[in-house]
Each structure stands twice: as C-alpha cells, then as structure tokens.
C-alpha cells in the first residue's frame, strides 16, 4: 500500500508493529524482509514519488573544515532516497575492513564479514549484480579487485509496484518524524509532519531509523536533545566518527601492456592494498582506479618522462605512433581513519521549516589520509616496476605535500558513520544488531552504522546489513 499523505494512511485500520523512517536502500530492504515475514510495517517517506525543491530544502546545511558538497546536493529526499542518483558501483567491504588495526585507533567492527556473507545472494538479487569474482593478487602488496558497475537500481522505481500491492507494508509519502520521544529504555512515539503540517504523535512497537548517513545523526541528536537523553542514552559517540571516501586524481601510469588487466566496459580497472602492506606502511585501505588517458594527456606525460628517463619516453612515443594504448590516469579513493572530531552537529542558528536544526558537518582530512594517498601510489608504482608492468608518475601536489585540489571529485557522496556499531558505549551508538545501546525498540539502518569505511562504494554493504537486520527482527518480533 502506498499513501500520498498521513491523513490517507490514518483513515485505514492498518496497525503496524514496526515504523521505518526512510525508503532508501536500507529502509526498503528491511521493510520487504519484515513484510515477507508477515510483520505489518509502515515506511514513512519524507518526500514524494518524485524530486521536489521544497522537500530537498530540508537537507540544506553547512560544512566546517575541508571543502565538501552542498548538503542538499549530496543526497536525495524522495521515494527511494539517494538510490535515485547513485552510480551503481558495487563491492562489499573486504574481510580486512572489519578487523581492528593497531595503527589506526577506533577501527574494527563487532561483526565480521562472515556475518553478512549469508545475505550476499539476496544483495545480488536486489541490486541486480553478477557474481563477484575473487580478488587477484598481483604482488604481496597489491590486489586487482572487482568493482561491479551495476544497473544502479532505483529502489523507488523498482519496488513501487511490489510495495503498493503488499498487504503488510504501508508506505506513507510526504510524511516524516521531526523527532522521536523516548524514556531512556524505549521510543514512546514519533512527532510526525505530513505535507508541511504537524500531524501529531505516532507510536509503534519498534522504530528503525533509515534516513541516510547524515540525517540519521541529525534526527537522533535532535530527538535526544528534546527528550533529555531519552532516545540515545549513551550519546558520547552520536554524530561522531563521520567518514567519506576522499577521491582525487593521484597521477598517471605508463603501462607495458594495457591488456594485462581486463578492464571493464569503461576501460577501467581497480587495485587495492593487501592487509600486510597496510600494516607495514601504517595506512588505510584505498582503491586506485586506472582509466585510459586521453591522447593530449599522454603527450604531456611523455614530455615529462623524457626529462627523467629519455629511453623509456622514446619507447612510449613509439607505442603511441603504433596507436597502442599505453597510458592511464590514476584516480584514488581511500578510507578515512575514524576520528571523533569528524562529526555532525546541530546548527545553533539555522532551522528547517519544522523548526529542526540543520546540520553543521565538521569534516577534515588528517595526516593519515595524505599518507595513505602517497604511500598507496608508491605501493602501486613499486608493484608495476617489480612486475615489469609499467611505471607510475605521482602528481606533484601529493609528493610535495601541497593542498588538495578544489576542482576535482573531492569525495564519493558516501556518508558513513555518526551512529557507528560497537560494544563500547562511549565509542559507538548501536550494538552488533544495529540496536541503539540501552534502548529496547530503536534500531538504525544504513551506512551511519559503519565503523570503518573501507575503500569501496557503500550501497552493497548497506543492503547486506539491511538484509541481516530484517532477518534478525523477523525472528525477534512475534505477530
């Protein structure tokens, strides 16, 4: 069932056991799992079926620290959430991403990759993925990894009919929880707004917050403030340890034989470090995206190489004259070390139409990030030399420790952390089952529960975690 307003939903006798806030990949996946188990669920979607400026305006906010995207651009507020603009790139976090790293504080999850692997077949169906191939080791330090370019499932489009026909799932559009109320043990109700108006309080046995990697923290911070700590009793880490995947062009490569790596349909191949290399160099995970270089770029690269290694430049020039592909751009996206100071705060001066403070995002890359970028490129370059596969040129600003360029990709629009998973209530917000510490009926879905970000796009992992949470609640909740 899909309703265009809360008023239309309220006119029915449908009584949900579970209230899910948000209809993105996490919210929709959990709702489908619970609905399939016969559990009545309501999904509150703040936006409509389509994009609207009025709805999107609720996402405006500000950023303090490093340059970042406008907060009303980097996410979407309508049916299907941010799946409506994702690129479809998929890979699940590596086994090593879940493990604590002695050289990086506050790393390590309370679950392992094995805990989400049983759900990967479902993830493949939901995201319409081919089978993942295993990583290929090209040295002790570097893995050739797979990043699937999937059809980019729009959850609103793909599942609208199914949700509409479901007898166990009610999706209520244009309706959202401006705040949750709680007594320190349970969420006792949600103050709802629908179509621009306060429509009163709503209760359910369970609440699952799936409003996105920025908004989850905002809603819980505001709710906790309003209920004097009654929604997140252990709030020391709430909003903190927020992470992105910084993404910049890191340099170029000359390749002895471009066909050495089976590139995908867009002539790209991806490389990541082994855990041993990360440990030795004390760096985080990274992904190097190798893209065939446009011809103009090759000429300047060869000219640069001629100053240092003339014979090799001559060889490259010969390859070019034979119209052979032999050069690539190297884009690097890498894992940020979790830092409590990277956080979502509530603005003290700016509120939305419902009076909820807007987000003030504090985000800054650390020295660890620069080291990961530089040492990662050195690692890749060294591997190409040792295996006689090619040569790497690292961009000057990276070698010289210069400022990050401001005219590049900046980051991946991947919003992770803020309500991270863990066992230590001073350093995490939810437990291994995504339940808010100290609360009996409040859960969180989505990438805000990530403890670490790995190097890959988060949607596949978000979906796997949502399947796992849906499965857990299906066994827990009796109808």
């Amino acid at each position, binding site marked *: 069932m899909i309703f265009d307003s809360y008023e239309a939903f309220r006119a029915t006798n449908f009584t949900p056991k579970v209230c899910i806030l948000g209809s993105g990949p996490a919210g929709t996946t959990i709702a489908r799992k619970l609905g399939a188990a016969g559990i009545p669920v309501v999904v509150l979607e703040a936006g409509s079926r389509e994009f609207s400026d009025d709805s999107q305006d609720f996402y405006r906010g500000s950023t303090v620290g490093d340059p970042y995207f406008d907060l009303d651009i980097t996410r979407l507020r309508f049916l299907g959430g941010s799946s409506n603009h994702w690129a479809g790139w998929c890979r699940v976090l590596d086994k090593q991403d879940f493990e604590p790293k002695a050289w990086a504080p506050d790393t390590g999850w309370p679950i392992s990759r094995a805990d989400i692997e049983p759900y990967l077949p479902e993830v493949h169906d939901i995201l319409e993925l081919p089978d993942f191939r295993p990583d290929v080791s090209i040295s002790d330090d570097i893995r050739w990894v797979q990043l699937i370019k999937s059809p980019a499932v729009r959850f609103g489009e793909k599942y609208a009919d199914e949700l509409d026909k479901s007898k166990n799932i009610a999706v209520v559009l244009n309706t959202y929880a401006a705040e949750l109320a709680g007594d320190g043990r349970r969420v006792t109700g949600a103050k709802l707004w629908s179509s621009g108006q306060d429509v009163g309080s709503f209760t359910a046995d369970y609440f699952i917050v799936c409003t996105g990697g920025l908004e989850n923290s905002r809603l819980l911070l505001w709710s906790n403030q309003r209920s004097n700590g009654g929604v997140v009793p252990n709030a020391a880490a709430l909003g903190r340890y927020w992470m992105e995947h910084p993404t910049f062009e890191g*340099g170029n490569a000359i390749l002895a034989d471009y066909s050495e790596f089976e590139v995908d349909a867009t002539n790209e191949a991806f490389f990541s470090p082994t855990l041993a290399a990360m440990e030795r160099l004390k760096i985080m995970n990274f992904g190097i995206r190798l893209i065939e270089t446009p011809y103009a770029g090759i000429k300047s690269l060869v000219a*640069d*190489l001629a*100053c*240092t*290694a003339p*014979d*090799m430049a001559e060889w490259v020039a010969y390859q070019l004259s034979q119209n052979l592909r032999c050069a690539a751009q190297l884009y690097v996206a890498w894992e940020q070390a979790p830092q409590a100071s990277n956080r979502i705060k509530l603005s003290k001066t700016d509120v939305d139409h419902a009076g909820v403070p807007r987000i003030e995002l504090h985000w800054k890359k650390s020295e660890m990030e620069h080291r990961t970028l530089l040492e990662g*490129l*050195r690692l890749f*370059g*060294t591997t*190409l*030399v*040792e295996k006689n596969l090619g*040569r*790497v*040129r*690292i*961009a*000057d600003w990276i*070698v010289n420790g210069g400022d990050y360029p401001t005219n590049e990709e900046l980051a991946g629009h991947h919003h992770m952390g803020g309500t991270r998973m863990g066992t230590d209530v001073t350093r995490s917000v939810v437990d291994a089952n995504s339940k808010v510490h100290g609360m009996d009926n409040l859960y969180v879905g989505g990438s805000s529960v990530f403890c670490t970000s790995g190097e890959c796009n988060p949607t596949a992992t978000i979906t796997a975690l949502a399947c796992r949470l849906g499965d857990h609640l299906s066994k827990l909740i009796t109808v």
Partner: protein
Amino acid sequence: MSFFTKKISRRAIMQALIVLPTLSLFRGLPETTSSNADPDAIVEINGWILKRSDLV
C-alpha cells in the same frame, strides 16, 4: 655592468641557464653508472617510480 657580463653575452648566459636543469647534477638523479648501483633498484624521481636502469 660587472666584469662577468662584460665578457659573456646575455644570450650565452641565458643558454647556459636553460641547459643547467638537464644536467643530472641539477636534476638530483641518482648514480646510474657506478659499479655498485643495482640496476633493478626502485627509485623515485620527479614523482616517477622507476627502475634505476630506466635512467641510463
């Protein structure tokens, strides 16, 4: 005008300045001809990750 510039033309000075960076002494290139130098050693020069033998 100094004694130096009286004896050498401005053109010659400019040509010398242009050539200077191409000399290995001024490019900071590692030793490539020494009998002790390992030709397979990995070196980083001007942002390039190379094999020492690439520099010959």
